[in-house]
Protein backbone atom coordinates (compact mmCIF):
# COMPACT_ATOMS: atom_id res chain seq x y z
CA UNK A 1 0.00 0.00 0.00
CA UNK A 2 1.85 3.00 -1.24
CA UNK A 3 1.39 6.45 0.19
CA UNK A 4 1.20 7.88 -3.29
CA UNK A 5 -2.48 8.16 -4.13
CA UNK A 6 -2.16 9.81 -7.52
CA UNK A 7 0.72 9.74 -9.96
CA UNK A 8 0.43 11.57 -13.27
CA UNK A 9 3.34 11.20 -15.65
CA UNK A 10 3.87 13.20 -18.85
CA UNK A 11 0.21 13.61 -19.59
CA UNK A 12 -0.56 14.88 -23.07
CA UNK A 13 -3.98 15.59 -24.47
CA UNK A 14 -5.24 17.25 -27.63
CA UNK A 15 -8.69 18.15 -28.91
CA UNK A 16 -8.23 17.59 -32.61
CA UNK A 17 -5.40 19.92 -33.57
CA UNK A 18 -5.40 21.86 -30.36
CA UNK A 19 -2.89 20.56 -27.82
CA UNK A 20 -4.42 21.23 -24.40
CA UNK A 21 -2.03 19.33 -22.11
CA UNK A 22 1.59 19.28 -23.19
CA UNK A 23 3.25 16.95 -20.73
CA UNK A 24 2.01 17.31 -17.18
CA UNK A 25 3.54 15.39 -14.29
CA UNK A 26 2.16 15.51 -10.79
CA UNK A 27 2.09 13.42 -7.63
CA UNK A 28 -0.22 13.39 -4.65
CA UNK A 29 0.39 11.58 -1.40
CA UNK A 30 -2.30 10.61 1.04
CA UNK A 31 -3.74 13.67 2.72
CA UNK A 32 -2.31 16.13 0.20
CA UNK A 33 -4.50 18.99 -0.85
CA UNK A 34 -3.29 20.52 -4.08
CA UNK A 35 -4.92 23.57 -5.66
CA UNK A 36 -4.52 24.29 -9.33
CA UNK A 37 -4.74 27.88 -10.46
CA UNK A 38 -4.32 29.48 -13.86
CA UNK A 39 -6.21 31.32 -16.57
CA UNK A 40 -8.93 29.77 -18.75
CA UNK A 41 -7.52 27.53 -21.39
CA UNK A 42 -4.48 26.61 -19.33
CA UNK A 43 -5.72 23.05 -19.17
CA UNK A 44 -6.59 22.78 -15.49
CA UNK A 45 -10.13 21.46 -15.94
CA UNK A 46 -9.00 19.08 -18.67
CA UNK A 47 -6.34 17.72 -16.35
CA UNK A 48 -8.94 17.02 -13.70
CA UNK A 49 -11.28 15.37 -16.16
CA UNK A 50 -8.51 13.07 -17.37
CA UNK A 51 -7.98 11.81 -13.85
CA UNK A 52 -11.49 10.43 -13.62
CA UNK A 53 -11.45 9.34 -17.23
CA UNK A 54 -14.14 11.70 -18.44
CA UNK A 55 -11.58 12.62 -21.09
CA UNK A 56 -9.23 10.49 -23.13
CA UNK A 57 -5.56 11.32 -23.27
CA UNK A 58 -3.05 10.45 -25.96
CA UNK A 59 0.22 10.17 -24.05
CA UNK A 60 1.36 9.64 -20.51
CA UNK A 61 0.07 7.58 -17.61
CA UNK A 62 -2.16 8.09 -14.64
CA UNK A 63 -1.80 5.81 -11.66
CA UNK A 64 -4.09 5.66 -8.69
CA UNK A 65 -2.64 3.82 -5.70
CA UNK A 66 0.01 2.42 -7.99
CA UNK A 67 -2.23 0.89 -10.66
CA UNK A 68 -2.51 2.46 -14.05
CA UNK A 69 -5.95 3.53 -15.14
CA UNK A 70 -7.54 4.24 -18.49
CA UNK A 71 -5.11 2.46 -20.79
CA UNK A 72 -3.10 -0.73 -20.81
CA UNK A 73 -0.65 -2.60 -22.95
CA UNK A 74 -2.14 -5.12 -25.31
CA UNK A 75 0.70 -6.89 -27.11
CA UNK A 76 2.79 -3.77 -27.08
CA UNK A 77 0.02 -1.47 -28.27
CA UNK A 78 -1.40 1.18 -25.98
CA UNK A 79 -5.15 0.51 -25.87
CA UNK A 80 -8.05 1.87 -23.93
CA UNK A 81 -9.38 -0.41 -21.21
CA UNK A 82 -12.88 -1.84 -21.43
CA UNK A 83 -15.85 0.39 -20.49
CA UNK A 84 -16.50 -1.88 -17.53
CA UNK A 85 -12.98 -1.26 -16.27
CA UNK A 86 -13.38 2.47 -16.83
CA UNK A 87 -16.48 2.44 -14.67
CA UNK A 88 -14.60 0.60 -11.95
CA UNK A 89 -11.63 2.95 -12.13
CA UNK A 90 -13.89 5.94 -11.82
CA UNK A 91 -15.12 4.65 -8.48
CA UNK A 92 -11.68 5.41 -7.08
CA UNK A 93 -12.25 9.13 -7.47
CA UNK A 94 -15.07 11.46 -6.59
CA UNK A 95 -15.84 14.56 -8.59
CA UNK A 96 -17.74 17.75 -7.82
CA UNK A 97 -18.73 19.85 -10.83
CA UNK A 98 -19.04 23.56 -11.38
CA UNK A 99 -22.71 23.21 -12.31
CA UNK A 100 -23.47 20.77 -9.47
CA UNK A 101 -25.17 18.29 -11.83
CA UNK A 102 -27.51 16.98 -9.18
CA UNK A 103 -30.17 14.66 -10.54
CA UNK A 104 -33.21 16.97 -10.55
CA UNK A 105 -35.81 14.22 -10.37
CA UNK A 106 -34.37 12.72 -7.17
CA UNK A 107 -34.38 14.08 -3.64
CA UNK A 108 -31.10 15.02 -1.99
CA UNK A 109 -31.00 11.70 -0.16
CA UNK A 110 -31.83 9.72 -3.30
CA UNK A 111 -29.13 11.58 -5.21
CA UNK A 112 -26.66 10.16 -2.72
CA UNK A 113 -28.13 6.67 -2.33
CA UNK A 114 -28.56 6.00 -6.05
CA UNK A 115 -24.95 4.99 -6.60
CA UNK A 116 -24.65 3.41 -3.16
CA UNK A 117 -27.45 1.03 -4.02
CA UNK A 118 -26.68 0.44 -7.68
CA UNK A 119 -22.91 0.50 -7.76
CA UNK A 120 -21.89 -0.60 -4.30
CA UNK A 121 -24.95 -2.79 -3.98
CA UNK A 122 -25.69 -1.67 -0.44
CA UNK A 123 -29.06 -2.30 1.13
CA UNK A 124 -31.69 0.39 1.38
CA UNK A 125 -31.15 0.94 5.10
CA UNK A 126 -27.38 0.99 4.84
CA UNK A 127 -27.38 3.53 2.02
CA UNK A 128 -29.89 5.71 3.82
CA UNK A 129 -27.68 5.75 6.90
CA UNK A 130 -24.60 6.66 4.93
CA UNK A 131 -26.49 9.35 3.05
CA UNK A 132 -27.80 10.87 6.25
CA UNK A 133 -24.30 10.82 7.75
CA UNK A 134 -22.86 12.76 4.85
CA UNK A 135 -25.76 15.19 4.73
CA UNK A 136 -25.03 16.00 8.35
CA UNK A 137 -21.36 16.31 7.52
CA UNK A 138 -22.06 18.99 4.93
CA UNK A 139 -24.45 20.80 7.22
CA UNK A 140 -27.81 19.75 5.72
CA UNK A 141 -29.14 17.17 8.20
CA UNK A 142 -32.82 17.84 7.58
CA UNK A 143 -32.86 18.59 3.85
CA UNK A 144 -32.67 14.98 2.72
CA UNK A 145 -36.16 14.91 1.28
CA UNK A 146 -35.81 18.20 -0.55
CA UNK A 147 -35.34 18.23 -4.29
CA UNK A 148 -32.54 20.14 -6.01
CA UNK A 149 -35.03 22.66 -7.35
CA UNK A 150 -35.97 23.52 -3.79
CA UNK A 151 -32.41 24.12 -2.63
CA UNK A 152 -30.16 27.15 -3.01
CA UNK A 153 -27.02 26.92 -5.12
CA UNK A 154 -24.80 26.58 -2.09
CA UNK A 155 -26.99 23.83 -0.66
CA UNK A 156 -27.05 22.00 -3.97
CA UNK A 157 -23.29 22.07 -4.22
CA UNK A 158 -22.97 20.74 -0.68
CA UNK A 159 -25.29 17.87 -1.57
CA UNK A 160 -23.10 17.24 -4.59
CA UNK A 161 -20.06 17.09 -2.31
CA UNK A 162 -21.88 14.66 -0.02
CA UNK A 163 -22.83 12.54 -3.03
CA UNK A 164 -19.20 12.25 -4.08
CA UNK A 165 -17.87 11.61 -0.57
CA UNK A 166 -20.48 8.95 0.18
CA UNK A 167 -18.84 6.67 -2.39
CA UNK A 168 -15.70 6.62 -0.23
CA UNK A 169 -13.24 7.64 -2.92
CA UNK A 170 -9.47 7.65 -2.52
CA UNK A 171 -9.21 11.03 -4.17
CA UNK A 172 -11.60 13.98 -4.50
CA UNK A 173 -11.63 16.22 -7.53
CA UNK A 174 -13.16 19.70 -7.34
CA UNK A 175 -13.72 21.51 -10.63
CA UNK A 176 -14.23 25.24 -9.95
CA UNK A 177 -17.06 24.33 -7.65
CA UNK A 178 -17.86 27.85 -6.51
CA UNK A 179 -17.66 29.63 -9.85
CA UNK A 180 -21.38 29.31 -10.47
CA UNK A 181 -22.47 30.46 -7.05
CA UNK A 182 -23.72 33.79 -5.77
CA UNK A 183 -21.02 35.48 -3.67
CA UNK A 184 -22.81 35.07 -0.36
CA UNK A 185 -23.20 31.32 -0.91
CA UNK A 186 -19.57 30.63 -1.69
CA UNK A 187 -18.30 30.51 1.87
CA UNK A 188 -20.61 27.74 3.06
CA UNK A 189 -19.19 25.49 0.33
CA UNK A 190 -15.57 26.47 0.94
CA UNK A 191 -16.00 25.78 4.65
CA UNK A 192 -17.22 22.27 3.92
CA UNK A 193 -14.28 21.61 1.64
CA UNK A 194 -11.88 22.86 4.31
CA UNK A 195 -13.36 20.54 6.91
CA UNK A 196 -13.17 17.58 4.57
CA UNK A 197 -9.52 18.40 3.97
CA UNK A 198 -8.94 18.59 7.69
CA UNK A 199 -10.26 15.03 7.95
CA UNK A 200 -7.39 13.91 5.78
CA UNK A 201 -9.01 13.46 2.34
CA UNK A 202 -6.63 13.64 -0.61
CA UNK A 203 -7.86 16.42 -2.89
CA UNK A 204 -7.12 18.05 -6.20
CA UNK A 205 -8.88 21.41 -6.46
CA UNK A 206 -9.22 23.66 -9.49
CA UNK A 207 -10.30 27.07 -8.26
CA UNK A 208 -10.34 30.80 -8.82
CA UNK A 209 -10.70 31.54 -5.12
CA UNK A 210 -7.12 32.49 -4.32
CA UNK A 211 -7.47 33.07 -0.61
CA UNK A 212 -9.21 29.74 -0.24
CA UNK A 213 -6.43 28.01 -2.19
CA UNK A 214 -3.90 29.65 0.09
CA UNK A 215 -5.70 28.50 3.21
CA UNK A 216 -6.63 24.97 2.34
CA UNK A 217 -3.76 23.57 0.29
CA UNK A 218 -0.33 22.28 1.17
CA UNK A 219 0.80 22.68 -2.43
CA UNK A 220 -0.31 25.08 -5.16
CA UNK A 221 0.21 24.55 -8.85
CA UNK A 222 0.08 27.32 -11.42
CA UNK A 223 -0.77 26.04 -14.89
CA UNK A 224 -0.15 27.93 -18.07
CA UNK A 225 -0.62 26.87 -21.65
CA UNK A 226 -0.92 23.15 -20.97
CA UNK A 227 2.02 22.84 -18.62
CA UNK A 228 2.77 23.27 -14.96
CA UNK A 229 4.53 26.62 -14.89
CA UNK A 230 5.17 26.84 -11.19
CA UNK A 231 4.64 24.62 -8.20
CA UNK A 232 5.22 25.21 -4.53
CA UNK A 233 3.80 25.85 -1.10
CA UNK A 234 1.04 28.44 -0.83
CA UNK A 235 3.52 30.95 0.57
CA UNK A 236 5.94 30.37 -2.29
CA UNK A 237 3.28 30.79 -4.92
CA UNK A 238 1.21 33.60 -3.56
CA UNK A 239 3.78 35.61 -1.67
CA UNK A 240 7.05 34.93 -3.49
CA UNK A 241 6.11 34.36 -7.09
CA UNK A 242 9.15 33.92 -9.25
CA UNK A 243 7.94 33.56 -12.86
CA UNK A 244 6.73 36.56 -14.84
CA UNK A 245 3.60 34.78 -15.99
CA UNK A 246 2.54 33.95 -12.45
CA UNK A 247 3.14 37.47 -11.21
CA UNK A 248 1.07 38.85 -14.06
CA UNK A 249 -1.69 36.35 -13.33
CA UNK A 250 -1.78 37.12 -9.62
CA UNK A 251 -1.88 40.84 -10.30
CA UNK A 252 -5.22 40.40 -12.01
CA UNK A 253 -6.77 38.32 -9.26
CA UNK A 254 -8.04 39.11 -5.80
CA UNK A 255 -5.80 37.99 -3.05
Amino acid at each position, binding site marked *: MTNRVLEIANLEKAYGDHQVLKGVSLGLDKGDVISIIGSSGSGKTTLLRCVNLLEDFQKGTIRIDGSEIGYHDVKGVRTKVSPKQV*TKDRALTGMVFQSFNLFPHLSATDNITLALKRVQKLSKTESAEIAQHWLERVGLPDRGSSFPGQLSGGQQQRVAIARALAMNPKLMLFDEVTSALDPELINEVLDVIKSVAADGMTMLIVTHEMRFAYEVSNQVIFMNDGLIAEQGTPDEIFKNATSERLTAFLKNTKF
Partner: protein
Amino acid sequence: MSTGFFNELWISKVMIFRGIYTCLFVSFSAIILGTLIGICVGLSLTYGNRFTRFLARAYTDIIRGIPVLVLILTFYFVLSVIHINLSALQAGITSLAIFCSAHVSEMLRGGLQNVPKGQTEAAKAVGLSFFQTFLFVTLPQALRQILPSWINTAVEIVKGSTLVSLIGVVEITLVTQQIIGRNFLTMQFYAVAGLIYFLIGFSIERTGKFVEKKVAIK
Protein backbone atom coordinates in the same frame (compact mmCIF):
# COMPACT_ATOMS: atom_id res chain seq x y z
CA MET B 1 -83.45 21.79 -32.94
CA SER B 2 -86.70 19.92 -33.03
CA THR B 3 -87.44 17.08 -30.67
CA GLY B 4 -87.06 14.95 -33.75
CA PHE B 5 -83.32 15.35 -33.43
CA PHE B 6 -83.15 14.14 -29.86
CA ASN B 7 -85.45 11.31 -30.81
CA GLU B 8 -83.14 10.30 -33.60
CA LEU B 9 -80.18 10.64 -31.32
CA TRP B 10 -81.77 8.29 -28.81
CA ILE B 11 -82.66 5.74 -31.45
CA SER B 12 -79.14 5.68 -32.79
CA LYS B 13 -77.43 5.48 -29.44
CA VAL B 14 -76.34 1.86 -29.87
CA MET B 15 -74.76 2.58 -33.23
CA ILE B 16 -73.04 5.64 -31.86
CA PHE B 17 -71.62 3.74 -28.92
CA ARG B 18 -70.39 1.04 -31.26
CA GLY B 19 -68.70 3.68 -33.31
CA ILE B 20 -67.08 5.22 -30.26
CA TYR B 21 -65.94 1.84 -29.03
CA THR B 22 -64.35 0.98 -32.37
CA CYS B 23 -62.68 4.37 -32.57
CA LEU B 24 -61.21 3.99 -29.10
CA PHE B 25 -60.19 0.40 -29.76
CA VAL B 26 -58.42 1.30 -32.99
CA SER B 27 -56.83 4.41 -31.52
CA PHE B 28 -55.56 2.88 -28.32
CA SER B 29 -54.26 -0.26 -30.00
CA ALA B 30 -52.42 1.90 -32.48
CA ILE B 31 -51.05 4.17 -29.77
CA ILE B 32 -49.79 1.32 -27.60
CA LEU B 33 -48.35 -0.69 -30.46
CA GLY B 34 -46.90 2.42 -32.08
CA THR B 35 -45.31 3.59 -28.84
CA LEU B 36 -43.63 0.24 -28.28
CA ILE B 37 -42.25 0.15 -31.81
CA GLY B 38 -41.35 3.81 -31.55
CA ILE B 39 -39.34 3.20 -28.38
CA CYS B 40 -37.27 0.52 -30.13
CA VAL B 41 -36.66 2.70 -33.16
CA GLY B 42 -35.99 5.73 -30.97
CA LEU B 43 -33.39 3.87 -28.93
CA SER B 44 -31.63 2.72 -32.09
CA LEU B 45 -31.76 6.27 -33.34
CA THR B 46 -30.12 7.65 -30.21
CA TYR B 47 -27.70 4.94 -29.20
CA GLY B 48 -27.25 2.71 -32.20
CA ASN B 49 -24.21 2.31 -34.36
CA ARG B 50 -23.93 4.10 -37.67
CA PHE B 51 -25.81 1.53 -39.67
CA THR B 52 -28.69 1.11 -37.20
CA ARG B 53 -29.00 4.85 -36.87
CA PHE B 54 -29.20 5.23 -40.62
CA LEU B 55 -31.99 2.68 -40.87
CA ALA B 56 -33.88 4.22 -37.99
CA ARG B 57 -33.50 7.71 -39.45
CA ALA B 58 -34.70 6.55 -42.86
CA TYR B 59 -37.69 4.82 -41.33
CA THR B 60 -38.63 7.82 -39.20
CA ASP B 61 -38.22 10.45 -41.89
CA ILE B 62 -40.03 8.51 -44.58
CA ILE B 63 -43.01 7.56 -42.45
CA ARG B 64 -43.30 11.09 -41.10
CA GLY B 65 -43.34 12.43 -44.62
CA ILE B 66 -46.23 10.25 -45.76
CA PRO B 67 -49.80 11.43 -45.19
CA VAL B 68 -51.69 9.13 -42.84
CA LEU B 69 -54.29 8.28 -45.45
CA VAL B 70 -51.66 7.04 -47.87
CA LEU B 71 -50.28 4.87 -45.11
CA ILE B 72 -53.68 3.39 -44.39
CA LEU B 73 -54.47 2.75 -48.01
CA THR B 74 -51.07 1.19 -48.57
CA PHE B 75 -51.54 -1.32 -45.80
CA TYR B 76 -55.01 -2.18 -46.97
CA PHE B 77 -54.62 -2.29 -50.73
CA VAL B 78 -50.98 -2.39 -51.66
CA LEU B 79 -50.08 -5.24 -49.33
CA SER B 80 -52.74 -7.45 -50.88
CA VAL B 81 -50.77 -7.28 -54.08
CA ILE B 82 -48.04 -9.24 -52.34
CA HIS B 83 -50.67 -11.51 -50.87
CA ILE B 84 -50.71 -10.10 -47.36
CA ASN B 85 -54.41 -9.58 -46.90
CA LEU B 86 -55.19 -7.50 -43.87
CA SER B 87 -58.72 -6.88 -42.80
CA ALA B 88 -59.74 -3.27 -42.74
CA LEU B 89 -59.44 -3.24 -38.98
CA GLN B 90 -55.96 -4.77 -38.99
CA ALA B 91 -54.78 -2.48 -41.73
CA GLY B 92 -56.16 0.51 -39.89
CA ILE B 93 -54.50 -0.32 -36.59
CA THR B 94 -51.20 -1.29 -38.22
CA SER B 95 -50.91 1.83 -40.33
CA LEU B 96 -51.81 4.13 -37.45
CA ALA B 97 -49.34 2.28 -35.24
CA ILE B 98 -46.55 2.74 -37.78
CA PHE B 99 -47.45 6.41 -38.03
CA CYS B 100 -47.34 6.71 -34.25
CA SER B 101 -44.02 4.87 -34.01
CA ALA B 102 -42.26 7.29 -36.33
CA HIS B 103 -43.34 10.24 -34.22
CA VAL B 104 -42.54 8.54 -30.93
CA SER B 105 -39.07 7.60 -32.13
CA GLU B 106 -38.25 11.18 -33.06
CA MET B 107 -39.69 12.41 -29.77
CA LEU B 108 -37.66 9.94 -27.76
CA ARG B 109 -34.46 10.89 -29.54
CA GLY B 110 -35.08 14.56 -28.90
CA GLY B 111 -35.94 14.00 -25.25
CA LEU B 112 -32.94 11.79 -24.54
CA GLN B 113 -30.54 14.15 -26.24
CA ASN B 114 -31.98 17.14 -24.44
CA VAL B 115 -30.96 15.86 -21.03
CA PRO B 116 -27.98 18.06 -20.09
CA LYS B 117 -24.59 16.51 -20.62
CA GLY B 118 -23.64 17.24 -17.03
CA GLN B 119 -26.15 14.66 -15.86
CA THR B 120 -24.42 11.79 -17.61
CA GLU B 121 -21.05 13.10 -16.45
CA ALA B 122 -22.18 13.23 -12.84
CA ALA B 123 -23.60 9.72 -13.16
CA LYS B 124 -20.30 8.50 -14.60
CA ALA B 125 -18.34 10.29 -11.88
CA VAL B 126 -20.32 8.51 -9.22
CA GLY B 127 -19.69 5.16 -10.87
CA LEU B 128 -22.95 4.27 -12.65
CA SER B 129 -22.71 2.08 -15.71
CA PHE B 130 -24.11 3.14 -19.09
CA PHE B 131 -27.25 1.12 -18.59
CA GLN B 132 -27.73 2.33 -15.03
CA THR B 133 -27.26 5.93 -16.12
CA PHE B 134 -29.85 5.48 -18.85
CA LEU B 135 -32.38 3.83 -16.58
CA PHE B 136 -32.07 6.00 -13.47
CA VAL B 137 -30.86 9.36 -14.69
CA THR B 138 -31.44 10.00 -18.40
CA LEU B 139 -34.74 8.25 -19.07
CA PRO B 140 -36.73 9.67 -16.12
CA GLN B 141 -35.81 13.19 -17.18
CA ALA B 142 -36.43 12.55 -20.87
CA LEU B 143 -39.86 11.02 -20.31
CA ARG B 144 -41.08 14.00 -18.37
CA GLN B 145 -40.03 16.24 -21.20
CA ILE B 146 -41.65 14.09 -23.86
CA LEU B 147 -45.01 13.69 -22.16
CA PRO B 148 -46.80 16.71 -23.70
CA SER B 149 -45.73 15.80 -27.23
CA TRP B 150 -46.74 12.21 -26.71
CA ILE B 151 -50.20 13.25 -25.61
CA ASN B 152 -50.37 15.42 -28.73
CA THR B 153 -49.50 12.45 -30.90
CA ALA B 154 -52.13 10.36 -29.14
CA VAL B 155 -54.78 12.95 -30.02
CA GLU B 156 -53.50 13.02 -33.61
CA ILE B 157 -53.99 9.26 -33.79
CA VAL B 158 -57.56 9.60 -32.59
CA LYS B 159 -58.19 12.18 -35.28
CA GLY B 160 -56.46 10.00 -37.83
CA SER B 161 -58.78 7.16 -36.97
CA THR B 162 -61.53 8.92 -38.91
CA LEU B 163 -59.70 7.96 -42.07
CA VAL B 164 -60.18 4.26 -41.47
CA SER B 165 -63.83 4.86 -42.21
CA LEU B 166 -62.76 5.07 -45.81
CA ILE B 167 -61.70 1.46 -45.81
CA GLY B 168 -64.89 0.42 -44.18
CA VAL B 169 -64.14 0.29 -40.48
CA VAL B 170 -67.31 1.16 -38.65
CA GLU B 171 -66.12 3.92 -36.39
CA ILE B 172 -67.59 7.28 -35.47
CA THR B 173 -67.40 8.99 -38.84
CA LEU B 174 -68.86 6.06 -40.71
CA VAL B 175 -71.60 5.57 -38.14
CA THR B 176 -72.47 9.23 -38.42
CA GLN B 177 -72.78 8.94 -42.17
CA GLN B 178 -74.94 5.86 -41.84
CA ILE B 179 -77.26 7.66 -39.45
CA ILE B 180 -77.46 10.69 -41.69
CA GLY B 181 -78.19 8.41 -44.60
CA ARG B 182 -81.25 7.37 -42.70
CA ASN B 183 -82.63 10.57 -41.26
CA PHE B 184 -80.94 13.34 -43.24
CA LEU B 185 -80.23 15.43 -40.15
CA THR B 186 -76.83 16.19 -41.64
CA MET B 187 -75.70 19.26 -39.77
CA GLN B 188 -76.82 18.05 -36.39
CA PHE B 189 -75.18 14.66 -36.59
CA TYR B 190 -71.92 15.91 -37.99
CA ALA B 191 -71.96 18.34 -35.10
CA VAL B 192 -72.52 15.41 -32.76
CA ALA B 193 -69.58 13.59 -34.34
CA GLY B 194 -67.46 16.69 -33.91
CA LEU B 195 -68.53 16.92 -30.30
CA ILE B 196 -67.64 13.30 -29.62
CA TYR B 197 -64.18 13.69 -31.13
CA PHE B 198 -63.71 16.86 -29.18
CA LEU B 199 -64.63 15.15 -25.92
CA ILE B 200 -62.28 12.24 -26.58
CA GLY B 201 -59.38 14.50 -27.47
CA PHE B 202 -60.09 16.86 -24.64
CA SER B 203 -60.20 14.06 -22.06
CA ILE B 204 -56.90 12.72 -23.31
CA GLU B 205 -55.39 16.16 -23.03
CA ARG B 206 -56.75 16.69 -19.53
CA THR B 207 -55.49 13.31 -18.37
CA GLY B 208 -52.13 14.18 -19.83
CA LYS B 209 -51.98 17.47 -17.97
CA PHE B 210 -52.93 15.71 -14.75
CA VAL B 211 -50.18 13.13 -15.15
CA GLU B 212 -47.72 15.88 -16.06
CA LYS B 213 -48.45 17.69 -12.82
CA LYS B 214 -48.11 14.52 -10.81
CA VAL B 215 -44.69 13.54 -12.10
CA ALA B 216 -43.29 17.03 -12.45
CA ILE B 217 -39.84 17.66 -11.07
CA LYS B 218 -40.23 20.02 -8.15
